[in-house]
Structure formats: C-alpha cells, structure tokens
C-alpha cells in the first residue's frame, strides 16, 4: 500500500483479500435481533438528561455568581489600615493602635504638649524613594504615597484615598511617629496585615503555610497586646516572632516594633541589638537610615549582641 493517497477508482473492490472477505461477511451479516429500544425508555432517559443538564447549569451559574460576589466584595471592602504609635519618638506616649479604616479615616497621634511636630516621612519599600512631608501634610517631593496618607493640621494621621498604590510588591509606610506596613500582593493595597514585608518571589524555606500562619498569629497577638497596653506581652510575642520566624514576611515590621517597645520600657541595650539585627538582616531597606539614626541616638552602637539580645543575657 502506497503511503500517498491516489485518485481511486470508484468501482474498486471493497476487499481485495479473499481470505479477509470471509471475516468481513461474518461481520456484515450481523443483524440486531434483540428487542428494540422502546420509545418510553428513551424518553425517560431524555428527561433525566435534561434534569441533569439543568442542575449542572444551575450549579455552574451559582458558582460563577458566588465567585463574582466574592471578587466584588474583596475589591469593594475598604482597607483596614493600622498605625502603630512609635513611642520612641514620642517620649512617654503610651503605644496604642490607631485604626484607620478606609478613605478619610483618621488615627490620633498623641503629641506631647509643647513638642513641635517633626513632619512626616514615608517610604514604600526598598526600591521606592521615601516621600517626606511637611507639618501640613504637603509632600516635599513627589512620591507614590503622597496622596495616600498625610499628616493633618491637627497632627492626626489621615488616609486620604481609598487605596494605597505602590510600584513594588510590598510596602511599608513609615512616618516619624507612625509605622504602617501594608500587604502588597497586588499593586493596589487593600489590607494591612503587616506582612509581605519583602518582595514576592523571594520566599525562603520557612515560607510554608504553617510558618506563615504562625508568624501571622504572633504578629496579630502582639498587636492585640499593644491595643490592651500590655507592652511586656507584646515584647515577648514579637521576640518569638523574630527568633522563630526570622525569614517570615512579618519579621521586618516585628523587628522595628520590638526595638521601639524595648526602648519604651527602658531596655536600651535590647533595643540596640534589635536595631543592629535589623541592619544586618535588611542592609538595603528603605528604613536603614532611620534605623541607624535611632541606633545612634541610643548610644549603644558598640554593644555586643547575640541575636536580638545583648551577649551578657
């Protein structure tokens, strides 16, 4: 048999092999002699099929509707933004959580009497320049977050727009008296969970779901402790977070919080070790100059540390 189809003769024999012809005849002679399929049975089957199709269609429609609803809710729910008061720059101000719930919401920044406002500085991650603001919330240099947050005239931090847009995959908004880290899984920030403090795709071995969940649990528990003004518990929880989950996305913000809290409770050596640890761990971080300034202010730059604690402990 040639591999190339040729123009056939319409009268060509159907089977050329005489031996095969006997087999073909045996097959061709088959007659279907069983009781033929009754119409009623077919009709019942068609009704069942129609019902099954309708059920599948409804299930599909319900699934699509539910998915659309979830997406719509996820996109429309206003962000919950939290600002943690930095006690280090506030002297004796008690740490607290000011919840900034969406556009126009405000979180009070307790300002010590007689102390002038220092203005606001914002940064959005390693590759995004910081955006300094003056006392009146006017940006001194155009920046990505200029319109997203500002310091109002009365000293309150204010979220000016619904969503904070950043170019990087994560962002940390830092003000001289407010720190707020934003999750950045999309380029539009919709929730503050204080995680994803490093670029996506740089996940380490610890980034399993369990580690993430545990680190997140510790970060949330520390926030709650702070909200209840339980500094020591917050310090313990943040310490656990940075010791056990040092490569988790929550570790960066936890280091900053821990250092500030230790400073607030008078543990200057401990705070210096944490700042030192931060600089070692995140040498190119946007906060590094701010952290260096704070470390210098503590006058413990030559302290010997073991991890996040002084060597002597």
């Amino acid at each position: 048999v040639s591999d190339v189809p040729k123009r056939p003769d319409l009268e060509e024999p159907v089977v050329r092999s005489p031996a095969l012809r006997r087999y073909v005849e045996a097959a061709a002679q088959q007659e279907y002699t069983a009781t033929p399929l009754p119409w009623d049975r077919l009709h019942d089957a068609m009704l069942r099929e129609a019902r099954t199709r309708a059920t599948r269609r409804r299930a599909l429609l319900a699934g699509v509707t539910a998915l659309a609803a979830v997406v719509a809710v996820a996109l429309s729910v206003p962000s919950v933004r939290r600002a943690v008061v930095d006690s280090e720059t506030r002297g004796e101000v008690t740490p607290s959580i000011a919840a900034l719930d969406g556009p126009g919401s405000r979180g009070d920044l307790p300002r010590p009497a007689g102390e002038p406002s220092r203005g606001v500085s914002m940064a959005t991650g390693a590759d995004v320049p910081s955006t300094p603001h003056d006392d009146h919330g006017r940006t001194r240099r155009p920046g990505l977050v200029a319109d997203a947050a500002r310091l109002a005239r009365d000293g309150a931090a204010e979220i000016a727009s619904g969503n904070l847009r950043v170019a990087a995959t994560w962002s940390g908004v830092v003000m001289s008296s407010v720190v707020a880290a934003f999750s950045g899984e999309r380029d539009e920030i919709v929730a503050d969970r204080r995680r994803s403090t490093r670029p996506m795709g740089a996940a380490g071995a610890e980034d399993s779901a369990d580690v993430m969940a545990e680190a997140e649990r510790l970060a949330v528990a520390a926030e709650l402790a702070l909200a209840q003004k339980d500094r020591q518990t917050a310090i313990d929880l943040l310490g656990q977070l940075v010791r056990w989950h040092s490569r988790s996305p929550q570790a960066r913000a936890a280091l900053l919080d821990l250092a500030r809290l230790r400073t607030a409770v008078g543990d200057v050596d401990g705070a210096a070790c944490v700042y030192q640890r931060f600089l070692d761990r995140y040498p190119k971080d946007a906060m590094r100059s701010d952290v260096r300034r704070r470390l210098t202010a503590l006058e413990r730059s030559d302290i010997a540390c073991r991890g996040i604690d002084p060597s002597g402990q």
Partner: protein
Amino acid sequence: MFTAPMAVEDGEGAPDVTPRRTAPAWIAAAGAGDVTAQARFFRDHRDRLASQLLRMTGDAAVVDDLLQEVFIAAFAGLGGFRGDASIETWLYRIALNKARNWWDSHRRRQRREREGGVRLTPEAARPDEDLEAIAHRERLYAALEGLPEVLREAFVCRVIEGMPLVDASRALAVPISTVSYRTRRAELLLCRALGLEEPT
C-alpha cells in the same frame, strides 16, 4: 445504505455539492422538542441505527445504550440541522462519534482486565449462527481494536457497512481518496493481524 444524490469531488477540502434540502417540518418540530415528532423520528431511524452501531462495535450488548446516547445527542442538536447532508448521514456521524467513545473506553477496559488477569466472557452466540462465522467475527473485531481510529472507521464504514466510496466520504467527512487509502491500509493491517495473506 445511503443514496448518494451526487458525486463528491475528490481532493482535500472538496465541497459537498449535495443540494441543500430543507429539513421537513416534522424534523424541525422534533428539534424543537415536540414529543410526537420525536417519537416518529425515533421509530424511523431506530432499527437502521441499531444495526449500524452493531456493525461499528461488534457488540450487541452495548447497542441499546449507544442508541440511546445517539438519539439524545440527535434531539439536542436537531434544532441546528440545516439539511446540508442527509439526515441519515448526519445521524451516522453522531453514531460514529458515540462508537468512537465506546471503542476508547472498551480498549481501556480490555487493558485493565488483561492487567488484572480477568478473561472476558465471550459473546453469547445465537443458536442459529454458524460457529465459524462467529469465530471469524470475533477475531475480526479483536483485530479492529488494534487499528488506529481513522483506519478502523474507514474500514467499518466502507467494508463492513458496505457504503459506496462517495457515501463513505460524506459520512466520514474526508475526501474519497482518503477513504480509499485508509480502507486499503486497514485491510493490509488486518490481514497481518489475522495472519492472512496480504493483498497484492
């Protein structure tokens, strides 16, 4: 057997020049869900399709189920039938698709049973049938199972079903030369599989 209204030109993509026929009103009614029309449609085509399915599969036990699937698919698609081909050709193509699915699952089932060491129960023979004919038929379908899908379909359509080249070309939606080539190729492979002398 189909009646070919006109010859199909040979060559790839040759147009089917069958005059377009308007589907009878009762066929349209069957497509629209009219139960009476559907019952009539069913009665008109049931026996012929059952025999075709039997010749496609060689297994009488599956004919009823396949027949049911063919009619369910046909009624679902009858609304879109425009008479480009005859209703028999259109139904034959549906039957061919269902038989193709059956062959696929049959082959998987055979493989599983072979792997599991299970021996298939031979088909019950009709008392009036010639034992030699039964043996031939069983061997032929076992050999057909080993053929590529397109060769098997061409062989069944052209040789076992006995369609003229023109009708087979229309039913399989391939040019006449392709039907001819596939049939001859299938014949060669079957002769080899059955240990018969190859055609010259």
